[in-house]
């Protein structure tokens, strides 16, 4: 898959931009604040339907404008898909795929698979379990539209249960809670199964990627659950286990007025030779595992979708030592890549250079 053209209207610093990248490596060079990352952010938005910087949509609209527009043409195989997003400063966003509204926004994930490398990727290792849950869930949604749908449903059911607990506290009507428990359990079992399937599918790619970027030892996921999900083999057993856990945690949940068990509280961890990377690996080892996670994701998408995803590298080489950079480049340079860099000096990767300044790319 590759992006053949990108148009931005009132997006971040760009009043109007038309950018036609090459099919290979594109290097965006410019001063800090020139708008390099904004280009990557726009491409990422077409793939993930949100900013990889974790900001709300209205932060993407150019100051003083009523709305921002991102349009892109994506070629894959013989056909080209056009994806268009309009983000108004108030009201709902509009998403069009080939001029039509997709039945669900998750369908666009299939049109534009992207993998993002960020300087703060180390967060996936170092920070709390939330970032690792997001890593697994995002990747599952990129691979399988059903996973994205199931996550949305789980999130919705959970928010409903939490709203009920917030309003009722210890007086919450148990009959009503019963049915929301049931709905949360149905959706939660699916979310867990997607994570489990993903961790298994990723394992080989993660293992290879870790070796390729120079790691020694072996990396594994360890999934610590807030409920008894380990003994449950299939979806029905998972549903029953989560339903029981919800009933058991009910008194506590009523006290704290929120749901304390379920996939949204689980803790996926990464082990290096059986030791938790978060607390026991060196900084260098952590960096290598973080890289392997991104490259593993890239390989898994390529494997499942039979097409290379679009790769976005935001100022990543400034954080990598020469040795790791030398090992990473050959693994990624064959697909379409977008790299940002502040300095026009030696990068370990070759490609078409674009100069970014004052809201233009040339």
């Amino acid at each position, binding site marked *: 898959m590759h992006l053949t053209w990108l148009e931005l209207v009132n997006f971040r610093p760009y009043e109007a931009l038309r950018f036609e990248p090459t099919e290979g490596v594109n290097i965006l060079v410019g001063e800090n604040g020139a708008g390099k990352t904004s280009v990557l952010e726009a491409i990422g938005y077409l793939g993930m339907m949100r900013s990889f910087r974790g900001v709300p949509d209205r932060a993407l609209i150019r100051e003083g404008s009523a709305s921002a527009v991102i349009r892109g043409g994506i070629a894959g195989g013989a056909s080209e898909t056009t994806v268009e997003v309009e983000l108004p400063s108030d009201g709902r966003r509009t998403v069009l795929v080939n001029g039509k509204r997709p039945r*669900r926004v998750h*369908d666009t994930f299939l049109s534009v698979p992207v993998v993002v490398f960020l300087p703060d990727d180390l967060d996936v290792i170092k920070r709390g379990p939330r970032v690792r849950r997001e890593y697994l869930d995002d990747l599952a949604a990129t691979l399988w539209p*059903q996973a994205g*749908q199931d996550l949305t449903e789980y999130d919705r059911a959970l*928010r*409903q249960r939490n709203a009920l607990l917030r*309003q009722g506290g210890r007086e919450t009507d148990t009959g009503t809670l019963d*049915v*929301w428990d*049931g709905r949360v359990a149905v959706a939660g079992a699916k979310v867990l199964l997607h994570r489990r399937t993903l961790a298994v599918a990723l394992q080989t790619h993660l293992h290879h990627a870790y070796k390729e970027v120079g790691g020694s030892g072996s990396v594994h996921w360890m999934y610590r659950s807030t409920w008894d999900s380990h003994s449950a083999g299939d979806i029905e057993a998972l549903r029953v286990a989560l339903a029981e856990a919800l009933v058991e945690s009910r008194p506590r949940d009523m006290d704290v007025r929120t749901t304390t068990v379920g996939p949204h509280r689980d803790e996926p961890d990464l082990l290096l030779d059986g030791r938790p990377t978060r607390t026991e690996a060196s900084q260098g080892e952590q960096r290598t595992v973080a890289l392997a996670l991104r490259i593993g994701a890239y390989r898994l998408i390529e494997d499942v979708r039979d097409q290379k995803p679009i790769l976005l590298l935001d100022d990543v080489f400034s954080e990598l030592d020469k040795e790791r950079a030398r090992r990473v480049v050959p693994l990624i340079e064959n697909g379409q890549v977008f790299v940002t860099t502040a300095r026009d000096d030696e990068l370990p990767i070759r490609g078409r250079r674009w100069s970014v300044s004052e809201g233009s790319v040339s």
Partner: protein
Amino acid sequence: MFEPPVQRLIDELSRLPGVGQKSAQRLAFHLLNVEEADARRLADSITEMRSTVRLCNRCFNATADAECTICVDTRRDTSSICVVERAQDIPVIERTQLFKGRYHVLGGAMSPIAGIGPEQLRMSELEARVGAEGVTEVIAATNPTVEGDTTAMYIAQLLKPLGVKVTKLASGLPVGGDLDYADEVTLGRALAGRQEL
């Protein structure tokens, strides 16, 4: 800003569901340009509907009388009730001509976020009808959303102790369509609910 009477109509129209500021303007100027009789007919039909139509005492469908035309129809099967979220869902099911029973309009679906629990819906009325009307089957025809599904589960939980059969609509492939046009989620549901031949 337009002339106050025009602006007033635009404001009213734009409060309707699915009508934005632009459409409201178009509608208002359309009504200004048509024959006065045509515009008056619209105004009259709104007034008439509001003054004559009320909710059916039994099923809460829209009706001009104490009970709706379906509830008073003696040919309808009184042993089954089809539960819908809104009155506008009834004509949709009626068009299939396959359901011979009567209806019950809940008035929405359960959603704690929106402050809607069983008390805000016509659940106790449904429970009373099942007991009083000799009902043997209740079909939960709520929307296939998180809220609709949960509402269906609540209905099942509420009515099972009364010894009544509670069913919900199957979801799956649209008839007459190509398999490769179905989205993954619908196809997934159809696969999960497959039937032996």
